[in-house]
């Protein structure tokens, strides 16, 4: 069993919102990731059982979506945009800076992402899906450190509330 009892009840409530249980695969994967910090094989097997699909089908769906992390990624997912507005306003440099700085930090997972729809605040990034805009490398460092010290409260790695 992968879900806690509370989350299993929550999973059943989510399934009940949909005319077909299988529609709940994405929200149930988010729920599992909220709980565990990544989407485990056990969780996908339980989701499969709950919605009446095979584990392979659930894996097939979930592996399509970049927000689902099939291996543990640490406490903080830092998503840095390098798409075409951030491209000319410092996004790629910001990404490379953070990637190198946190290369050996198991708590911080830095990834390059596509446009986050906050281009009036380029270059922008998200920490566990909370937005931070118009950043310099120095600001970004201070930001990540504030999360690590607990001065800023992070969402889960799926963007949910703890």
């Amino acid at each position, binding site marked *: 069993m992968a879900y806690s009892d509370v989350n299993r009840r929550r999973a059943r409530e989510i399934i009940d*919102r*949909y*005319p*077909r249980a*299988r*529609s*709940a*695969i*994405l*929200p149930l*994967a*988010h729920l599992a990731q909220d709980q565990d910090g990544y989407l485990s094989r056990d969780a996908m097997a339980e989701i499969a059982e709950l*919605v009446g*699909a095979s584990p392979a089908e659930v894996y*097939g*769906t*979930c592996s*399509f*979506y*970049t*927000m*689902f992390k099939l291996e543990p990624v640490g406490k903080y997912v830092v*998503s840095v945009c*390098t*798409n*075409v*507005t951030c*491209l*000319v*306003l410092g996004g790629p440099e910001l990404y490379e800076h953070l990637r190198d700085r946190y290369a050996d930090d198991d708590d911080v997972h830095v990834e390059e*992402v*596509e*446009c*986050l*729809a*906050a*281009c*009036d605040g*380029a270059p922008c990034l*998200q920490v*566990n*899906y*909370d*937005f931070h805009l118009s950043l310099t490398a120095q600001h970004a460092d201070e930001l990540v450190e504030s999360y690590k010290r607990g001065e800023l409260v992070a*969402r889960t790695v799926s*963007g*949910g*509330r703890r």
Partner: protein
Amino acid sequence: MPETRMLTRRLHEHPDDSWTADVAIADGAYDALRATLERDSGDVAKEIEVAVLRGRGGAGFPTATKWSFLPDDSFPRYLVVNADEGEPSTFKDHMLLQRDPHQLLEGVIISSYAIGCDLAFVYVRGEFALGGERLEQAIADAHRHGFLGRDILGSGFDLEVVVHRGAGAYICGEETALLESLEGERGMPRIRPPFPAVEGLYAKPTVVNNVETLSAVPHIMSMGGARYAELGVDRSKGTRIFSLSGHVRRPGNYEVELGKTTFRDLIFDDDLGGGVPGDRTVKFFIPGGASSQWLTGSDEHLDAPLDMDYVQKTFGVMLGSGAVMVYDETVDPALVAWRLVKFFAHESCGKCTPCREGAGWMEKVLYRISHGLGRPQDLDLLLDVGDNISPGLDAPFSQTTICPLGPSAVSAVVSLDKFFRDEVLEKCPTRIPVAVGGAT
């Protein structure tokens, strides 16, 4: 020139709490719903038709016509809201969702009443954690006030709205891929026909509308379609929110009357973009999101009105998602083209070979052009690959793929050739020997 704030009025007037039920309701949210529920449900589509409301997601298809494709006697049917905004440099739906969820919700309830559905879904882009949360809260508050649930405001009309979070896939903004994703599948577009209006979600009749489109519906119902249609020109009516970004002093979302404003106004007017930093010149701009072909800083292009049909007919570009990205003279257009095509290659779902393979190869060739490794024949090679995805390389484009993602990747290549061929060739001066077994 000031904006014409209709959809963005509340969020500007109440910057600290426009998304809360108390503020929204005190400001008039759900008044249009109350009045609409007193009228025949068929009146809504009539008003929308008179208003000439066209989809604000990208294609600009007339909303009333889309609704009219629903078969008369087939139930259940669904309204699905496309809040999966991901078109590069578009950030208007993000704002509307996060800062005025009650306006969207009112549009959803009125539109559900109009088409006769009792279950609606809002597919929210997964990365919009706060936006999704505020919409959930708005739904709970609307229930408490009797705007959702059973027998809404004593009208006998029932509706539930379910928020469905995506999980990071641009392609799910394409309506049939969105429906696949909502059914728990990989987000891969479906072959049409059948169109969603006939066989959509769970193979039932389904309307998929964009956030901005539905957010306009309460305004059309309160002012009347005819008055809404007094704004704008020809078949581009009402207001639209343009997401302006890149090399402008005041990047942001600006709501302006369609057709009465030019790109020059949007980029340079002190109330809008405020001009290019350092008083540099506009080298080129992308007028309708990443999928559109480009325009340049020429007077002819800058003075074009923000009119969907005019720019399509005159320049073969689209207003698309309403994003305008501005690049000054310091920018290498090949670098922008490479990054755009890298995006499409990454987001290709892999279902159709021309897009899956073509976008990937175009990205590799553009990488070498934009990183000093280009060869003189590379631009023509790109056009050749592009022609296999979008035969004729025209706009509006033809396609060898199920959805427009592949052809969208070709737009950047065509634009690079059209406006910057000499500049690109200058960067690819020498014929580099081809390794054994290499491509042309």
